[in-house]
């Protein structure tokens, strides 16, 4: 079994950290990223999928 990397998952303690991480991954050029949250976080969708 070759250990092929399919993706990475990370858990964040609060909304601000998640938002920050989303902005950072986007800035560093990652394309296939998604964030999941238990409630709507302002600016999160815009950070990940800017139009």
């Amino acid at each position, binding site marked *: 079994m070759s250990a092929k990397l399919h993706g990475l998952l990370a858990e964040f303690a*609060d*909304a601000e950290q998640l938002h920050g991480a*989303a902005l950072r991954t986007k800035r560093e050029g990652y394309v296939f990223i*998604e*964030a*999941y*949250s*238990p*409630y*709507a*976080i302002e600016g*999160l*969708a*815009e*950070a*990940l*999928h800017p139009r």
Partner: protein
Amino acid sequence: MSTVFSREPQLPVIAPGENALSVTRSVSGVVLKLPVGLRWMGSLGFAMMLTGIFLVGICWLLYAGVGIWGLNIPVAWAFAITNYVWWIAIGMGGTFISAAMYVTRQDWRASINRLAESMTVFAVAVSGLFPIFHLGRPWFFYWLFPYPDIMDLWPQWRSSLEWDFWAIIAYLIVSIAFLYVGMLPDLATLRDRARRRLLAIFYGLLALGWRGEAQHWRRLESVTLMLAGLSVPLVFSVHSMVALDFSEGLVPGWHSTIFPPYFIAGALFSGFGMVLVLAIPMRRLFGLQAYLTDRHISVIAKLMLAAGLWIDYSYASEIFTVFYSMDKFDVRMEMNRFLGPYAWLFWSTMAFNFVQIQLLWFERVRRNHVAVFVIALGVLYGMWLERLMLIVTSLYQDFMPSAWGMFYPTFWDFAFLFGSVGLFLSLYLVFSRLMPMLSMYELRKLAHKRNEVEG
């Protein structure tokens, strides 16, 4: 001066120490964990019994016709239309709370909106039954719909019955959509937390594959905003139309342009009343005091008082206009309301819709939930009496004395009234055990915001 305007310290909209996890646990616990209690079963049993009477009444009505009710010419509307207006008005108040408060970003609505929206859906559904049963030949009710038929049948667009049909349909569709879309994330939470596979499948199908992606939230927010934007004008347009059912009639006491705003005031008034009547027992029954706080009860009580003052102003304005016009039929109708055989209807309406609500000016009364509950029940009763008063006192003596006649309700009139209450309560009680009664995702956001402010 400062003592006059000093504000009472604001009560919290969510109990301190609540966070996303505790919200999820206690709200989803009501659906997934809480054992079926004796009080809930007892309430449901009682509501089902009333629903049973309603069903018997409906069968008897379909067999024997509307003659089983006390209505006749000249009072041809009576209880059926009173019940219709009463129920649809209750729904309007619910929509106003959830939609208008959403558009204006009132954060306290987070815990009350689901309760108000579900109340709306059930109240409108129950209200829609009455115009149909009142038709005489209820099985032809679909003739109201302009479907392509071979009989050259086309709806009578000038008939208020037709307007009722569109009002109810439009309102029902939008309020169901609003309720359902708003529940999607919470249904997904129930799917994820359900222990039994069957329950997980049930909630999973309803949740439409909600995963909480950032994109999902963005879409949910824009859809909610659109539906709220649609609902707020609908509250006003639909109930204005209900009011025009009366205004277009030429009888004294109905033929008045004040009716649309007057009816909307009444709708909000009775809607807030019903929210209080449901919320006060619900929070105790399901232990949701941390979310449906004293602040909520107090704020809705204030809204009810405000709507009540608006309707009291409408009463005063209506009476003033009648005497200012010096129209002899209108004056006679008004004097009949004050002193005629149905004067008790008018004066009880005043007692419930004007006198007793003045107690709500006092903070001490608003914090006493038993008092607020009793006042809200009185408001519901008063608003029902008001519609009956409007209908009966205008119809029983119109222009020609030869056509005058009294109205006396029969057993079946009351069976339909209390039966419809039973149907509404049954639907509501079942819903409260199957679906999350409070919006978990909005409460999580609220709790997060609060904790941030407090540091």
